[in-house]
């Protein structure tokens, strides 16, 4: 085995991970003048060079179909990543089926994600105070609101000012006009008294900081060739590199945080994937942003005489309370949308309208069978034709058949599909956590995670409510439900991890005994160790995590700058 190599230079900050959390930390800290080394386990990625924008499924192998190693197929931005990463296994305890998504590339999942950018509301920070379940955050909405303003200002988010309960408005660019089926859904929602408002996505409708406005090709998931959507490499990292203060090392698989005799972190050790050698980077401050479970894994694997249970883990809570989003979906067919004159319905990459949670009053009055809420995401219209398009329509709607009549009927039916997906809050529970599997290592020899996961009745009943609501909306539109799930399938609730909104595992709080990090996401035990991904999340509101990662990471970065100035953190 090669000897461990240590980079002679000591950096101000080493950041592990380059996604939303690592990216925002690198951005803010490099602009503040800190010398930074960022470590990314995957390869370099730059959407302006690597994006497969404007390609067609018929131009590429197997019509761009997905595979287990590439779930969204050929065009997707995620070059290496998925619920399965070759050579990097994880395990599940008996009875658990956690699916752990990882993106091994610069920018992580920000290259691919849905760009949905919803602020957590005042209730979402104090859920325990409202209904006695889970935990309160150590901060309030007012603490984070200025950082939401800043994050939205940097990444660029469109939306509208609505003034709805617990659905804070933001620092928005103008929202794009709705598509035809979205106007129909709005009409049906009005009948059912469900608010249906313009969505809030991190896609530019106006130029911003040298980035152009969207050209409406709808393929944000492929990554954007002009950075018109938010992605960490183009928006966080590129300007950080321009400062000259940031060095990025790719193919760097971090094993552990290293700790000095003074009990402070002094850097990290990692495997350089190309040479398969063990390397060390020294830094005065360590920021973990490897994605929540990976961050917990690094902490748990950072064992030393001072920290026998892993670095920063005197509370024993590292790895506890992992959460995903409650997801359940219903598809339908809208006869009214058949046989319409063709139009380009692409728009931005994602929905132009959505429905925020609307039953706060009923819940407050104890009139709902579950705690917490969900928002509704929607899709439909005339999407890019890919593999599987209308493949079962004849069998399902025409009694079978073939020939000219079927061909013409399919043309009429194209554009009439509709799809609803609920995205709801999961309450943290004692049965959902990760730990180090004592018997399994990955191809780099690093011990892997073992997952335990369980939904509670609150989540399952929420999925039931989703199913019933979506079917009601489809029926209100004179539509036919084509795919749904009943009690026998737990109301279609997706397996934990499948929605890829995993948060938690390194909880923040106001008490070192019941949390790992303080309100600035600083380790209680190791003052120069910080976390800026979704690991500090105390709850997982129905507001998709990325915007809150950005805002919280910014707040933590400001705090680091402030502490360095005050010499409270060793530099």
């Amino acid at each position, binding site marked *: 085995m090669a000897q461990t190599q240590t980079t002679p230079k000591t950096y101000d900050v080493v950041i592990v991970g380059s996604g939303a959390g690592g990216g925002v930390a690198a951005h803010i800290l490099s602009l503040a003048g800190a010398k930074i080394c960022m470590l990314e386990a995957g390869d370099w990625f730059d959407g*302006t060079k*690597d*994006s*497969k*924008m*404007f*390609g*067609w499924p*018929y*131009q*590429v*192998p*197997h*019509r761009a179909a997905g595979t287990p190693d590439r779930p969204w197929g050929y065009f997707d931005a995620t070059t290496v990543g998925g619920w399965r990463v070759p050579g990097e296994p994880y395990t599940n305890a008996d009875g658990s089926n956690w699916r752990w998504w990882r993106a091994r590339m610069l920018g992580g999942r920000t290259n691919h994600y849905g760009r949905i950018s919803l602020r957590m509301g005042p209730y979402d920070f104090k859920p325990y105070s409202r209904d006695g379940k889970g935990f309160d955050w150590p901060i309030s909405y007012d603490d984070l609101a200025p950082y939401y303003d800043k994050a939205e200002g940097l990444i660029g988010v469109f939306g509208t000012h609505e003034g709805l309960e617990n659905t804070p408005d933001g620092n928005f660019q103008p929202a794009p*006009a709705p598509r*035809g089926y*979205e106007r129909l859904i709005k009409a049906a929602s009005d009948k059912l008294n469900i608010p249906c408002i313009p969505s809030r996505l991190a896609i530019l409708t106006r*130029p911003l900081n*040298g*980035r*152009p*406005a969207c*050209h*409406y*090709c*709808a*393929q944000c998931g492929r990554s954007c*060739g002009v950075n018109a959507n938010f992605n960490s490499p183009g928006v966080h990292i590129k300007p950080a590199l321009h400062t000259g203060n940031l060095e990025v090392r790719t193919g760097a698989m971090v094993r552990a945080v290293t700790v000095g005799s003074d009990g402070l972190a002094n850097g990290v050790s990692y495997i350089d994937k190309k040479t398969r050698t063990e390397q060390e980077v020294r830094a005065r401050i360590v920021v973990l942003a490897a994605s929540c479970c990976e961050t917990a894994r690094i902490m748990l694997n950072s064992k030393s005489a001072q920290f026998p249970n892993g670095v920063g883990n005197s509370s024993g809570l590292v790895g506890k309370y992992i959460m995903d989003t409650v997801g359940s979906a219903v598809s339908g067919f*809208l*006869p009214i949308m*058949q*046989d*319409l*004159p063709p*139009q*380009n*319905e*692409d728009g*931005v990459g994602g929905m*132009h309208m959505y429905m925020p949670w609307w039953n706060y009053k009923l819940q407050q009055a104890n009139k709902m069978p579950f705690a917490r809420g969900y928002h509704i995401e929607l899709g439909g219209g*005339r999407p890019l*034709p*890919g*593999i*599987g398009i209308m*493949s079962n329509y004849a*069998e399902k*709607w*025409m009694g079978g*058949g*073939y*020939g*000219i009549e079927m*061909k013409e009927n*399919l*043309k*009429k039916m*194209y554009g009439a599909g509709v799809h609803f997906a609920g995205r709801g809050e999961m309450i943290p529970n004692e049965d959902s956590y990760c730990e180090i599997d004592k018997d399994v290592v990955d191809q780099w020899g690093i011990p892997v995670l073992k997952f335990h996961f369980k939904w509670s009745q609150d989540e399952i009943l929420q999925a039931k409510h989703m199913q019933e609501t979506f079917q009601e909306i489809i029926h209100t539109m*004179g539509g*036919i439900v084509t795919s749904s799930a009943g009690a026998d399938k737990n109301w279609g609730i997706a397996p934990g991890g499948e929605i890829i909104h995993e948060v938690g595992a390194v909880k923040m709080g106001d008490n070192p005994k019941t949390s790992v990090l303080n309100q600035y996401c600083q380790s209680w035990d190791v003052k120069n160790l910080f976390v800026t991904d979704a690991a500090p999340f105390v709850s997982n509101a129905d507001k998709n995590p990325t915007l809150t990662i950005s805002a919280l990471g910014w707040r933590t970065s400001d705090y680091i700058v402030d502490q360095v100035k005050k010499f409270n953190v060793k530099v």
Partner: protein
Amino acid sequence: MSDISRRTIFQIMGAVPAIAVAGSAAEVHDHAHMAASAAATAPFKRQTFDDHQWQTIRVLCDLIIPADSQSVGAAEAGVPEFIDDWLAFRAEQDGNLDLTAKIFGGLMWLDRQALPSTFAGLPVDGQKKILDRIAYPAKAAPEDHQYVPFFNELRSLTVSGYFSSKVGVQYLPYLGNTAVEKWEGCDPKVWAIIEERLKNGYKGGVIEAKPWGA
């Protein structure tokens, strides 16, 4: 800079089939070159079907989606090539030949029904007579029932392959995957039709739309 790169998109759109865009002309050229070569897939080589099966599949594809005044049929659209590749791909991904066996079994059944000819050797009327026995699941006779799933599968592959092909995209038509100068939402003319249908319903589709509100 933003104006330049946005303008650049509109200049190069349509010039090459698949492209990533950047700020400078040199970069754009590089990307166009890269994307164009990436888009050129290797020449087709049959992996699944033998000569006789290939001939039969081509006939079947055109029976399922024939040419009409607006577009070519499935064979010319490259659907047989798609199916041949797809069966090989699934066998590799799934680690079994279940899907291939289903298709092969169906092709043999078709030939048996055509004896002493082969299915492909029959006149179109004769071919349709056989297909009609398995193409309408609810109407299939008990003795033919086990080959209904074969035809469902073949139709599904043909439909999926056709409408995701260049020909199919143009036939539908799908008008996107391109740069749009200004996004204005639903075309007002289309919305006017939808509003009219909301009041009066619509019977011209495959499934009747009932009125539901104004």
